[in-house]
């Protein structure tokens, strides 16, 4: 019969370990917990930053470029170019299931952009309306992204990436000012809010400019899209969305919907899944390293508990002679080992919280490495994982010494002084 209350009372009444020794043991556990929690927090922080950076490109999107057929189709030979047009954007948005947004892009990679005496050969993208949302182009306060009237009226308005804006305007606020694109005047309507971006095609969003796709067509006389951007309503439906897009375009342009090379595609959902697994792997790895550090602390606890059992052999023998069942001898010892472990764990957690709060104060602006690594984050799963590992190590560290105590032969211990 196990009596927790009795075990607790006996624990309160068993003799105490030397303060210095107990302190060192607790410190070792605290150090181990600190390492574990910090490593996990760094992993978590990195995961959140990477997830944010991924969202910088767009969430659950795929990019499709014009390509060439590789399979013959209904009498047509392989090797024909497939080049979607602007009107396909609306058709795809209407016909493909599970699609939550479609946008077309036309890009001029070297358009001369002039403000005052500054001219930069920049990337100008003509984009249809949904682009802003699909590709997370949020306007910093004081500006806006392109809207439906801009597209319908073919207005000469332009939205700038923040680096490009700074290169052209320096300290000035670009919104409302005129910018010459290939000598045609445009009005700046917004500047992009700074964002973390991982993954790009053509170049990072911070140094390109976006104009309405209708205006682009007019100015540069382009007819074909540089690429399509499609967004699925859920990550799981991306495959279906891509199949749908291929079917609709295959029917229109006459190619085999199975012919993937007709529309080369970058499915970012796949990448996100791979990255999710990688991040999980990294977190596991960090957790294992931290856990091993903590394990060393656990060995310290086991060590002190073995010493305790040895020192108290006689006390244990006396208790057994007085009628203590072996659980009443081992129970308080396990409780003692757990107490050192949990005490150290709590101390480590407090220190880790302090370190994380201090790192939060550290400026990370500009430095990309710091932006990804310098944001350790504590979370509930981390706390739960740490508590579980601590509890397990504490139990293991206390169990084996306690088992030795239960094997004490009272007759043997009582005979000698």
């Amino acid at each position: 019969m196990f009596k927790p209350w009795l075990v607790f009372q006996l624990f309160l009444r068993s003799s105490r370990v030397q303060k210095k020794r107990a302190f060192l043991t607790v410190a070792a556990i605290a150090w181990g917990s600190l390492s574990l929690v910090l490593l996990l927090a760094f992993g978590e922080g990195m995961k959140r930053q990477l997830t944010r950076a991924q969202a910088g490109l767009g969430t659950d999107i795929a990019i499709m470029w014009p390509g060439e057929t590789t399979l013959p189709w209904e009498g047509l030979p392989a090797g024909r170019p497939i080049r979607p047009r602007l009107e396909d954007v609306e058709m795809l948005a209407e016909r493909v299931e599970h699609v939550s947004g479609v946008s077309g892009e036309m890009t001029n990679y070297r358009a001369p952009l002039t403000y005052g005496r500054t001219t930069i050969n920049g990337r100008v993208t003509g984009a249809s309306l949904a682009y802003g949302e699909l590709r997370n182009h949020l306007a910093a306060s004081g500006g806006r992204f392109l809207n439906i009237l801009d597209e319908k009226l073919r207005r000469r308005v332009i939205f700038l990436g923040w680096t490009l804006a700074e290169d052209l305007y320096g300290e000035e606020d670009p919104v409302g000012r005129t910018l010459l694109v290939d000598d045609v005047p445009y009005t700046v309507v917004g500047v992009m809010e700074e964002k973390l971006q991982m993954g790009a095609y053509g170049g990072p969003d911070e140094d390109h400019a976006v104009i309405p796709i209708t205006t682009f067509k007019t100015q540069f006389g382009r007819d074909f899209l540089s690429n399509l951007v499609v967004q699925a309503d859920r990550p799981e439906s991306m495959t279906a969305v891509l199949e749908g897009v291929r079917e609709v375009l295959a029917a229109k342009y006459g190619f085999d919907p199975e012919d993937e090379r007709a529309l080369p595609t970058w499915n970012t959902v796949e990448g996100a899944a791979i990255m999710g697994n990688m991040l999980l792997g990294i977190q596991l790895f960090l957790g294992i390293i931290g856990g091993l550090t903590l394990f060393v602390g656990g060995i310290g606890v086991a060590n002190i508990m073995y010493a305790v059992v040895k020192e108290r052999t006689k006390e244990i023998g006396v208790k057994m002679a007085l009628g203590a069942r072996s659980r009443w001898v081992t129970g308080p010892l396990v409780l003692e080992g757990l107490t050192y472990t949990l005490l150290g764990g709590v101390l480590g957690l407090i220190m880790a919280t302090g370190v994380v709060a201090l790192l939060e104060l550290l400026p990370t602006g500009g430095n990309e490495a710091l932006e990804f690594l310098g944001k350790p984050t504590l979370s509930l799963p981390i706390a739960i994982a740490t508590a579980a590992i601590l509890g397990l190590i504490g139990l293991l560290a206390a169990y084996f010494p306690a088992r030795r105590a239960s094997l004490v032969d009272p007759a043997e211990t009582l005979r000698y002084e």
Partner: protein
Amino acid sequence: MSEPQTPTGAAARATEPDTQPLIHMSGISKIYDTGKIQVEALLDIDLDVRNGEFLSIVGPSGSGKSTLMNLIGCLDTPTAGTYELQGEPVSGMTRTELADVRNRRIGFVFQNFNLIPQISTWENVEMPLLFGRVGKKQRRERVEELLEKVGLADRGEHKPTELSGGQMQRVAIARALAMRPALLLADEPTGNLDSSSGGDIMTLFEELWRQGHTMVVITHDLALAQRTKRRIELHDGRITQDSHSK
């Protein structure tokens, strides 16, 4: 667990008519096997002790006294022979059952007192009551009563190390009596005491015996053994004399 016993139940058992001996040992041997050499600590011991007896076991060191005490006290099990305590065979009991037997039926008094030094006198006496899972209120009453009985009512808060040898042994006796055991088993109880304190302890033992306790004292002090009512002499693991002195 055996039937739920209150301490009063155990006391009632100690005074009930002698239908059976308290201790019944027959053909008991204890052989320590240390690999190559076999040490015969006890050989073919037959011993009956009735309720209310005051018995001493004497013999030179190495005669097997301590081994006999460990066997009687259920701290050790014999190599051969049967041992019944209050009619119940002890051999074949689990460790837990043996622990309960030691808790409820046997009170130990040791030569070196074996009090736990870090806790108070009071808590030392209370220890067997905790193991016996006696309620809190009853524990307090019982400890007070016991400390009163051994004349140390005012020393409850002291640590054992703050007491004299004689006082420590009286605390140990109070502890031994806590669960109202059927048998009080003392191993050289005066061995670490000066003669005056030793005499006091012996007087206390006699008093306890008159109150109905069964006492077994192991000693090599013949003067002390003279004061017991029955004396058993042990030599080389055998009982050489069993005298009911007057």
